[in-house]
């Protein structure tokens, strides 16, 4: 669907992107994660042909990216902005037509989205008459109005209250299920972890980690387990390196266990159940944020 191949970009002595490659697939959500100033927006601007890379190329459906193909993209920039004195429907019509939509299909889509996000009554309102959250919603609709095959969302949830953020999240997942491929860029990694299928972690213009979220977390797991139980465990057990205990309000104790290398999980669980009443257990996987801090902390 979208393929970025060894893209580099330098600005006046500063490296914005260094040899970045990634591949986003149809019907998947791709997370472009990294702190502010990592180069996410630079990469997006290259993908959307706003700027050109110094080297490397971008392919869209196996075709080299060019301005003709940009119509297939819907881009919600981090810095939002619309014409303040224009009505919502005029604005939608204008941006839709700029994306090559016919007026009729533009109106059709407007009906669909305004109905769906409960915005029908705003049609004739000027943007400046709407609240900030409402403006954000309008902007989201304008991004997806032309039914793009690739949707690029830069910090999509900033500026939304939790209810609307959830609403947008649902819409994003629905669009993914309908076959759009979504590139989601954010510095708030925890907010998108559950959304993304694949990720790239970017720091200072370089990809520091890449892959499917599941695999990444598996790869960086420290093989730790959490058990919740009633009763008391002995201070030391065979096959367990260390343990951290934490008592919950309801009296249940949660313990994080770090087994010794080669220890069998079944053995450990059997041993635990012989001492206490085991309520819950799960393998603890690191969050993307933890992994990022681990990686970047290492390199720094």
């Amino acid at each position: 669907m979208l393929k970025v191949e060894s893209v580099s970009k330098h600005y006046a002595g500063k490296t914005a992107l260094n040899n970045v490659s990634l591949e986003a697939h149809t019907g998947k959500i791709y997370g472009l994660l990294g702190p502010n100033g990592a180069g996410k927006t630079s990469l997006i601007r290259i993908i959307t042909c706003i700027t050109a890379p110094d080297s490397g190329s971008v392919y869209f459906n196996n075709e080299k990216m060019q301005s003709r193909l940009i119509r297939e993209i819907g881009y919600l920039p981090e810095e939002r902005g619309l014409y303040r004195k224009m009505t919502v429907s005029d604005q939608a019509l204008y941006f839709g037509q700029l994306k090559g939509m016919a007026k009729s299909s533009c109106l059709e889509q407007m009906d669909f989205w305004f109905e769906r996000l409960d915005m029908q009554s705003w049609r004739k309102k000027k943007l400046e008459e709407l609240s900030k959250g409402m403006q954000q919603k309008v902007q989201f609709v304008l991004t997806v109005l032309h039914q793009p095959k690739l949707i690029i969302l830069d910090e999509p949830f900033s500026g939304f209250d939790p209810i609307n953020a959830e609403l947008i999240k649902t819409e994003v997942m629905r669009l993914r299920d309908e076959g759009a491929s979504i590139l989601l860029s954010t510095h708030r990694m925890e907010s998108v972890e559950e959304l993304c299928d694949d990720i790239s972690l970017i720091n200072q213009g370089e990809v520091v980690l890449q892959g499917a979220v599941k695999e990444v977390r598996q790869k960086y797991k420290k093989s730790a387990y959490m058990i919740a139980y009633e009763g008391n465990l002995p201070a030391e057990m065979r096959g367990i390196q260390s343990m951290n205990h934490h008592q919950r309000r309801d009296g249940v104790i949660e313990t994080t266990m770090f087994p010794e290398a080669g220890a069998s999980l079944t053995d450990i669980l059997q041993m635990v159940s012989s001492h206490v009443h085991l309520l819950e257990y799960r393998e603890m996987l690191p969050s993307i944020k933890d992994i990022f801090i681990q990686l970047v902390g290492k390199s720094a």
Partner: protein
Amino acid sequence: MKNILLVSRREYLSRVRKKSFVIMTLLGPFLVALFYGAIIWLALSDSQDNEERNILVLDESGIFSEGIESASNFHYFVNPADTQSSSYFGTLMIPSDFNLDHPDGARYLSSESLNIIQQNAIENQLEKTIKAQKLVRAGLRKATLDSLQTHVNINAAKLDGDTIKEDSSAVNAGAGMIGAFLIYLFIFLYGVQVMKGVAEEKSNRIVEVIISSVKPFDLMMGKIVGIALVGLTQIFVWIVLSGILMAVITPMIASGQVGEIQSAAQNMEHPMAQIQQQGGALSALFQLDFVSLILSFLFYFITGYLLYSAMFAAIASAVDAETDTQQFMFPITIPLIFSMAIAQSLVIKDPNGELATWLSMIPFTSPIVMMVRIPFGVESWQLILSMLFMIFGFIAVTWLASRIYRVGILMYGKKPTYKELLRWMTYKG
């Protein structure tokens, strides 16, 4: 191309629908007519000063003992019996040592000061009297003198191929200056609108949304073209309304003018010549080639506006806030201001001179300088060359401006230096 149209349509409609635009467009010609009407009315009411004034002349030299002829509503009373009458407007005192060869020391006293025209009238009358006496002293008789009085009025005409056209340099200069001034005004008026529009899109961060659908060049051109159409709409409405106004007002003024001329003729020595001269100016006005004037006005207006507004757009794209544009505005508008200043003096005095010719070739100054020259008659090859330069100049400037624009609109933070602007032109992509 389609996007340029879409963008310019939005720019056009969003401006034309504004109340302020509608009001200004409809009221403009009336306001201008009102303005000029007021000036003409004031001027006329001033010249229609018909009050008769008596001047008391206390002549100690005896030079004016034969009296001074009345003129310009001034009546002179030389050493009358009654010097105390309150009906005198002022007193003219001629000292005893005042003589024909050294007519110095005359003083005028009054409670109400003279204006320049009145003072001139009195001085003229004294000079005339002295001159007459000098001629008599030299042995010339008045009859001979009168026969020497000659009045010549050149009826300037322009040879255009085989046809002779009435010509009047005043009318030419006026027509040229009006055209040039309108171009000057419109470039500023609408160029600033382009600047504001770009600054608005940048500061509202609209630009990044649009730029993902439209090329920066299309966005810039769309805006420039849209606003140009707003300007042309306004000009068109103004021309039509002015035409209607002229059609209504001209007969009114004309009938007033005939009366003016007739009453003036009574006081003039050469009424026919005067009337002929006025008639010449009028027919010169009507013989001005309005079609080619308007066409070249439109050409230089459009291309000049395109050239300057592209630069305005580039400036606005480079800075974060509209207020920061001042620093870059000035150097860009210097050629425009310069050519307007030059047009007023040099071009009118020497419209086909070397400087005027050169300036009418340079795209930055030609819209104004050439506009002033055209009514005086410009050789076709010069006009064509100037227009070609203008087209190339506008393409080159727009191209360079768009290079700055496409980088500038996405740059936030510090205000760029001139060096950086130059560097932006060479950026890839």
